[in-house]
């Protein structure tokens, strides 16, 4: 239960975002003519926001299994990166592992990847609670939207920004943590090279994605971005890896201590 108490506050941003997005999804499904239980069921078993919103349109168009599969794989491709990032963290989580992988949404990945689990707490249980709470928020939101959507009167336009804000904060949090470690390591005068290399993954992520967005457009930039990020980080491994190891030495000892 101590894990639940540690995990819950971290999931509050997701609570807000998922309730809102879930309600939107539920309303969209029902107003598109589907029965109220369909958004709730898909929220529970499909549980991937971006794909569920696409699903509404797909279900309204003619049957085309191959294009559905292609779209799903393209939209879901980023999960391969999530998997690689969580490989080590999810090792040894036993029976919970299947559930943890199954429920890796963008937001759950973000929280669990960024988690600094307090000492003495079970890693597995902490990851489980984050994953479980997030999924329940999404299901609850979808159910609320599907059942009570018609009664909503206040203006929620723009509330979905809360999800973007969460990613911005997590991105900055990682950036600042690296900067703090740099200060610890070098004091006041950080060499330019160390400064650049330690933030290289973040800059690669933003830079490559922006470039691909400009070149390929909003509908098909994700896979090119992933390839570009992978290529740049693979080619610069010799320079980037030592810098990353040097900075994350503290994190590593912390992770090692947690059982």
């Amino acid at each position, binding site marked *: 239960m101590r894990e639940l108490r540690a995990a819950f506050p971290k999931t509050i941003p997701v609570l807000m975002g998922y309730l809102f997005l879930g309600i939107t999804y539920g309303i969209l499904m029902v107003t598109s003519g589907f029965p109220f239980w369909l958004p709730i069921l898909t929220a529970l078993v499909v549980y991937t926001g971006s794909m569920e919103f696409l699903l509404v349109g797909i279900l309204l168009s003619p*049957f085309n299994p191959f294009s559905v599969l292609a779209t799903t794989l393209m939209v879901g491709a980023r999960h391969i990166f999530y998997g690689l990032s969580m490989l080590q963290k999810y090792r040894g989580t036993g029976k919970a592992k299947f559930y943890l992988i199954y429920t890796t949404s963008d937001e759950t990945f973000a929280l669990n990847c960024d988690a600094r689990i307090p000492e003495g707490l079970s890693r597995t249980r902490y990851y489980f609670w984050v994953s479980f709470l997030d999924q329940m928020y999404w299901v609850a939101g979808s159910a609320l939207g599907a059942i009570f959507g018609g009664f909503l009167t206040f203006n929620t336009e723009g509330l979905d920004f809360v999800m973007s804000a969460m990613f911005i904060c997590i991105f900055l949090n990682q950036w600042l943590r690296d900067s703090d470690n740099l200060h610890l390591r070098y004091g006041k005068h950080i060499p330019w090279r160390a400064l650049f290399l330690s933030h290289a993954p973040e800059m690669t992520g933003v830079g*490559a*994605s922006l470039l691909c967005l400009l070149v390929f457009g*909003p509908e098909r930039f994700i896979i090119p971005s992933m390839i570009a990020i992978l290529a740049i980080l693979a080619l610069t491994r010799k320079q980037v890896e030592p810098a*990353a190891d040097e900075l994350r030495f503290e994190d590593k000892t912390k992770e090692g201590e947690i059982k």
Partner: protein
Amino acid sequence: MTMTLTQAVITVAIVIAGTVFTRFLSYLAFPEGRKIPPFVLYLGKVLGPAVFGLLIVYCFRNTDLLTSFAAGGTHGIPELMGLLVTSALFVWKRNMMVSMLAGTVAYMLLVQLVF
């Protein structure tokens, strides 16, 4: 609905199968017992920070910078302000809830009242 019930069920099943496949792929490639190659460990370390950059760009991918004010465009000002408020507050206070709340409220006010 243009689909029959069976077709709809198959469609949903394909979406589930495809999603599960992408989520499990990395773990299937490197199951518990097997040693993770150093290159993959390296990717695990650096892809996390990089993919958050991608996620942020993904969130803002549909921002319309070009449509003029006269035609109802915003030139991305609400998005930019939301981004700035969220980031500035986070760098200053390092409190996620505060900066998310402020950034979202700023964005909502702009899209609802100004534009």
